[in-house]
């Protein structure tokens, strides 16, 4: 029994000349869900998102947002959705607070809300700073605050964590989790597979306009049935001995470290422990990155 659907996209297509930016994409996002669209540059994430928001008319296919079509401009849906565009959209010469107040006023939100939003994204001390004088990451956070100022039911964020430093990225994760905790639906795109793995309930992996796989991150990784890599310092164990370990499938020595691949890490690790070669040992299990590699045959390049 799945929760009610917030967004249903079915078989949308969109071409720019010869470029098939979105080539038959379908997905459904349930209310309260955190849904991620992953993919490299040019995969069609932004295009798909903009069609879902009602900013673009798809060449084919349909979108249903809370049961209604967002295209043509559906003014009754607009208060329910918050959108952060990939390029931040701000009014000229206004301070951070004024940007929030202006966007808020478009939704009939009181100006007190601007202060709360600044605090939410950690920009309280930048309230009086003109938007043009904010750093890239600060501008990004302000842009997200502007998307949330009217307390929407569904939030579309296009690469919200791009250009953020690691600290700000983690802080933003907290913000996004908090928004989800309040029952909001989040649809977001990212290049960071690790981030998607941590945040998303479900992800869609997209490349060249198509969705290659869609599931929970854990299940995608599990279904991959990928090997676990046990990495040892170079010289900790001779190559032949490593090959002879229980469960060892493949051994690669790159001169710096020795990587043993296995589908049964437990016996392999205990064998290593018996030999006392656990110092500096690393275990790398499969990630979404491996899923991407498997699906496309290409290394993932964010």
């Amino acid at each position, binding site marked *: 029994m799945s929760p009610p659907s917030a967004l249903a996209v079915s078989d949308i297509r969109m071409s720019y000349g010869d470029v098939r930016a979105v080539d038959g994409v379908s997905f459904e996002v349930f209310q309260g869900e955190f849904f991620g669209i992953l993919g490299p540059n040019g995969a069609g994430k932004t295009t798909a998102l903009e069609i879902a928001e009602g900013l673009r008319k798809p060449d084919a296919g349909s979108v249903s947002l809370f049961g209604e079509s967002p295209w043509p401009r559906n*003014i009754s849906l607009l*208060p329910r959705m918050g959108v952060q565009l990939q390029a931040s*959209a701000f*009014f000229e010469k206004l301070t951070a607070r*004024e940007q929030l107040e202006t966007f808020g*006023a478009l939704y009939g*939100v009181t100006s007190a809300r601007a202060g709360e939003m600044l605090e939410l994204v950690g920009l309280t001390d930048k309230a009086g700073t003109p938007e043009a004088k904010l750093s890239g990451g600060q501008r990004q956070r302000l842009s997200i605050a502007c998307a949330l100022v009217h*307390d929407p039911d569904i939030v579309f964020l296009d690469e919200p964590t791009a250009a953020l430093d690691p600290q700000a990225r983690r802080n933003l994760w*907290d913000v996004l989790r908090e928004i989800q905790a309040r029952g909001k639906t989040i649809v977001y795109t990212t290049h960071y597979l690790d981030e998607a793995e941590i945040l998303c309930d479900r992800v869609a992996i997209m490349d060249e306009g198509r969705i290659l796989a869609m599931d929970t991150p854990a299940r995608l990784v599990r279904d991959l049935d990928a090997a676990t890599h046990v990495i040892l310092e170079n010289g900790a164990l001779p190559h032949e001995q490593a090959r002879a370990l229980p469960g060892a499938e493949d051994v690669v020595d790159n001169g710096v470290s020795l990587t043993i691949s296995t589908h049964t890490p437990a016996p392999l690790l205990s064998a290593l422990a018996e030999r006392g070669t656990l110092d500096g040992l690393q275990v790398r299990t499969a990630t979404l990155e491996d899923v991407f590699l498997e699906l496309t045959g290409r290394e993932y390049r964010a």
Partner: protein
Amino acid sequence: MTVTETPKRERAASGTASSSSSFRALATAMFKGFVRDKATLFFTLPFPLMFLVIFGLIFGDQGASRIEVGVVGDGPVIAALERSEAVELKPIENAATAEEQVRAGDIPAYVTQDGGNVTLRFAASDRTRASTVQGIVSGVVNQANIAATGQAPRFTLDAGQVEDESLQPIQYLAPGILSWAVSIAAVFGSALTVVNWRKKQVLRRLRLAPVRPVTVLGSRVVVSLGVALLQFVVFVAVALLPAFGLRLSGQWWLAIPLLLLGTLAFFSIGMLVGAFCKTEEAASGAANLITLPMAFLSGAFFPIDAIPAWLQTVSNIFPMRHLNDGMLDVMVRGQGAEALALPVLVLVGFTVVVGLLAAKVFRWED
């Protein structure tokens, strides 16, 4: 980043903002953007004012300079000449000095009166002014003769200038440069806002907010109208300073509604420019290409009759031409509301046609 947000909703009952709060917020945002942008501010006020000052000073004395005529002695004819105010009289102590000055070209002519004898000596080298003086003086002498006979004159000539006295340069420069300034502010203002908002995705963002396009447009129009009013006040105040000496005629305030209509016409031009141009550079180039020739051909810097007749006809396509005509009529020529009928009609028509065209070619994004 602390997460301390009250989850309560503060939306208006309908779930969307009232148009008036959106309108106010957008107008405020744009007005702040306007006053905080030093370049825009400069081109809106100090820049055109500079032209008013320069032109005002260059042409300042010209209108006042009537032909100067030397006079030696005194008498009824000379007194009548003085009353006529047709020429400037320059008293000179004796005929010899006066003769010298005429020869030197300092003055075109001199008059002496010795009882019934009026003598006029002029420099034939300065034919135009000499004949003007000759005509004026002989006219005055004839009148004096008729008066001396005690008879009522048989024919009377009622000669009067079309303009309010002499239309001093400041009288046409002030309304002219003002309308040029207003056109700069309105055309550039609307064109650059459209281009900048499209480029920076503000238009797309607004499209995703529950705000009607007419509210967005209206708020920008209101800012332009406000700026035009500000320009009117500053320009008229400066031109009224004794150094410039603008004299407003009776119903000068009728120029205000006309100016606002003109602003709308210029705004629609800006919208059209904004619809076609992708970058701010292209938009300001196109705006310059329109406003400057329009100003020259509409008589913003010199009286419209100074340009060839066919160009005067051509200039009728410009809203500024009609704005100028109307403003001159009510601000300095002392005419009333009836003088504005044609300008108002043209300006409204222009705004509607160009505005509809702009709406037709308007693009939300590139």
